[in-house]
């Protein structure tokens, strides 16, 4: 009995240390980004967020085009990936025979482990040409004259740009959404479904009105995991986005993201202010993930209040 309690204490201490390490790591990361971006922060102040110029020669730096590009590509990817991923997860957990479901899930987990540069190549060789010759022209034909929507689908269409980056990101994050959502849906108790069916609900009604709401916290979690990956993705995005720091309404326009510009320019950044501005971009990206994660928490808490699964 004595020995067992002793073990408890050791385990308690060890896990505490590891948990504290995470905290330490995060705070050190923020500290380093904060200190090393000092030059840029003092020179540009809050204007850093609004300035639309990125000029390493005349030392004028602004984050606006990169923040815009990061948000737009992430939103496009979620708009595509969430319905797709959720539908696939519902099929796999509710409708497909267990054997098929398990096989497909295994393949999906494999997809999640593919390195991002491979997705970048997929983007360059398949999505970009397809976008230029097929998808883009059709979208322009369909939506080019629809009020409001026409702004988003304007030529010129080079094949690279926000939309292509969004599609490649969607392909990359969809396995996360499917995999996590399916697991969560599978944990919904059998009684819930049976109760709904007993009340006269159809199979689909029981799934959509009972099972999915029960699992929504977990589904939300999967979406935010996907968002986190989309925000920080570097390699695949820089290969297909066109790397042009401009803010354009059209989804076919080339753009740039924070992670991409850091990866592209960090190695050759010689000036102190230039380097400092790149580090401040890193700080901005950290801040964006932090805010979005915070919003996610708030959303989850809010939806829990509305009923469903007790926390």
């Amino acid at each position: 009995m004595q020995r067992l309690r002793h073990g408890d204490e050791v385990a308690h201490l060890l896990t505490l240390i590891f948990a504290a390490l995470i905290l330490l790591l995060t705070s050190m990361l923020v500290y380093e980004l904060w200190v090393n971006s000092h030059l840029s922060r003092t020179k540009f102040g809050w204007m850093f967020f609004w300035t639309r110029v990125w000029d390493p020669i005349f030392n004028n730096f602004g984050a606006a085009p990169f923040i815009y590009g990061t948000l737009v590509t992430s939103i496009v990817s979620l708009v595509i990936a969430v319905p797709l991923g959720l539908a696939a997860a519902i099929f796999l957990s509710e409708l497909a025979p267990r054997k098929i479901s398990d096989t497909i899930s295994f393949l999906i987990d494999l997809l999640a482990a593919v390195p991002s540069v491979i997705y970048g190549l997929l983007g360059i060789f398949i999505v970009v040409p397809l976008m230029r010759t097929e998808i883009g022209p059709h979208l322009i034909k369909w939506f080019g004259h629809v009020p409001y929507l026409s702004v988003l689908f304007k030529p010129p269409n080079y094949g690279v740009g926000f939309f292509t980056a969004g599609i490649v990101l969607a392909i990359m994050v969809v396995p996360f959404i499917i995999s996590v959502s399916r697991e969560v849906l599978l944990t919904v108790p059998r009684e819930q479904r049976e109760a709904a069916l007993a009340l006269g609900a159809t199979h689909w009604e029981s799934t959509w009105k009972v099972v999915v709401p029960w699992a929504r916290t977990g589904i939300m979690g999967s979406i935010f995991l996907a968002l986190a990956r989309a925000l920080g993705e570097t390699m695949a995005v820089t290969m297909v986005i066109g790397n042009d720091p401009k803010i354009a309404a059209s989804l076919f326009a080339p753009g740039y993201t924070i992670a991409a510009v850091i990866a592209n320019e960090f190695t050759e950044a010689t000036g102190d202010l230039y380097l400092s501005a790149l580090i401040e971009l890193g700080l901005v990206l950290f801040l964006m993930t932090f805010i979005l994660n915070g919003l996610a928490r708030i959303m989850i808490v809010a939806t829990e209040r509305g009923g469903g699964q007790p926390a």
Partner: protein
Amino acid sequence: MKKRLLVVWLLAALAVSAGAQSNKVLLTGAGATFPYPMYSKWFDVYHQQRPNVEINYQSIGSGGGIRQVLAGTVDFGASDGPMNDDQIKEFKEKRGVEILHFPTVLGADVPSYNVEGVKTDLKFTQKSLAGIFLGTITKWNDPEIARPNPGVKLPDSDIVVVHRSDGSGTTYVWTDFLSKVSDEWKNKVGKGTSVNWPVGLGGKGNEGVAGLVKQTPDSIGYVELIYAIQNNMPYGEVENTSGKFIKADLASVTAAAANAANNMPDDFRVSITNAPGATAYPVSSFTWLLIPSKIPDTAKRDAIKGFLEWMLKDGQNSTEALAYARLPKPVIAKELKAISLVQ
């Protein structure tokens, strides 16, 4: 018996001192990626000839090379663009000694394009290249492009400009050339490893630019000559200061350097873009090793000086096999003299 012991001792002492002499000298360097294949070959061959000298080179980019040299974390740096006056001053303030530039090989940028229906090599005037990259020339059938290319049917389509998105010495050379031929470029954009491009798409690395050009109809971009040669990419001719259109190859690049060599400054920091000479290719450049003028560690100093001498004498013979243009003879002679500045 005692005598014998003494002999043993002496032998042992000799062995120890000999061991000390054959002690390995490990040099570390970092910088430019463009000459990396050449450097890694040179360092390898040199190590075979002098097994006690081992040179470890990290191709982290020219900017990184300059930063590491300034921080003193490496024995030498390497860069595709020379250090500017501020950086040289900073080095002197931080380390109390000078930084020396030693040219090693030559490189060049070439314009590569993909224009519907055009199979022949296009000729580009200095004005047309500046106009295309500034965004003031927007159509392929613009008179400035068409004038030197009689007989070529150029389409009435928009030009898609492709440039490097990653900071790179290739971009430095290209923008250095454009700054020399266009005042508007010089004042609006300037030269550097990354610039604020007025127009165009960015591709990562030579392969990124080449890929975009290949895929995008009516596009034009710039890549390193070596990359174009090794990948059999078609590329255009560029007008030089004599008004001649020159197709880049190893000879025309060395010619650009030869003309610049006649008035080579003592610190070797010279740009040879738009160099004079009828046969000179105008978008050429040296690439440099950055070496401190004082190296306190004698073993390291001897190793670096030894390598420099070997590189200038024997090393130059193996450049062309890897598609690098060799240094002109007067430059080599001048550099051999400059080695004595390393103390």
